């Protein structure tokens, strides 16, 4: 693996990623002709984030699932992102240090 190889990869991924970022925005007006596209795009944030994280949470094991459920509960009751996030991290840390069960 040479430096040229790495730089080639960086170059193409950079160009491709930028193209994806910009084209989504620039083509969105043309997407409008599709029926219900607004409902579709409205739901994208949630479905995309769920697809991104749920498999990883499951892979973390039972403690990951428990910590996520507690995160949801705190967010639902208190609506504080920082509190919800740090509680989850704290629980996972306790567990991994053998302090939980």
């Amino acid at each position: 693996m040479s430096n040229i190889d790495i730089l080639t990869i960086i170059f193409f991924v950079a160009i491709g990623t930028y193209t994806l970022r910009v084209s989504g925005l620039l083509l969105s007006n043309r997407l409008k002709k599709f029926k219900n596209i607004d409902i579709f795009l409205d739901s994208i944030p949630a479905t995309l984030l769920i697809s991104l994280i749920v498999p990883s949470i499951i892979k973390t094991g039972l403690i990951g699932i428990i910590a996520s459920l507690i995160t949801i509960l705190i967010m639902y009751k208190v609506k504080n992102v920082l509190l919800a996030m740090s509680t989850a991290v704290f629980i996972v840390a306790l567990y991994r240090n053998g302090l939980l069960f």
Partner: protein
Amino acid sequence: MKNELKNGFMANLPISISVFTYGAVLGIICTSKGISFLQLALMNIFIFAGSAQFLIVDMLSSPVNISVVVWSALLINLRYFLIGASLNEFFTNTSLKKRLFIMHFVTDESWAVTMSKNKKQGVSVFFLLGGGFCIFIVWFLGTLSGYYFGEFISNPKLYGLDFAFLALFTAIITSMYKTKNDLIIYLITAIIAVLLEKLLANMSYIIFSAFIGSFLYVYLNKRQNDE
């Protein structure tokens, strides 16, 4: 505009803790893979997408198959197309030059924060940009500290820091929840994502399950509107 930039920057600070950690882990991995800091910095500046950078570094081997690495990385980043499309309403009065500049700084984190904030009170495109700047700087600093001071953070997993990113997004998704239909779609999408992740050899499951979930969402809500 200045205020919005600052608000966006500040709103992303809580998340930046996990971005910093995530970056530090990448920095540590880069040293073990023999990647120079300059190469890491080029990735941070020009690619600026955490999961794709992880994947690239992870896939580097000798001999390396360049096209496989590039296509896999772009496959994960395909979600930026959807993210870009969902941002249309923020850019209605923005010049092309600004669009081309601002879009480079859009990340999962700053986008998610902007979208959830926008549901409560309207925010402008500068809020999005401020968030992007925050993540950009923190990401860079995170990879830098991992690269040069990695040995001090011997095991980030022991502190549960790898979970911060997942917990954060879980919290953000919860804040997006509105109706019972949402819950149905969220659960179905989650199940599809878990299944597809096992069936597909690459990261394309992220795109596919988001698509299926959103199509079902359209179907459910359209039917309700018709009734």
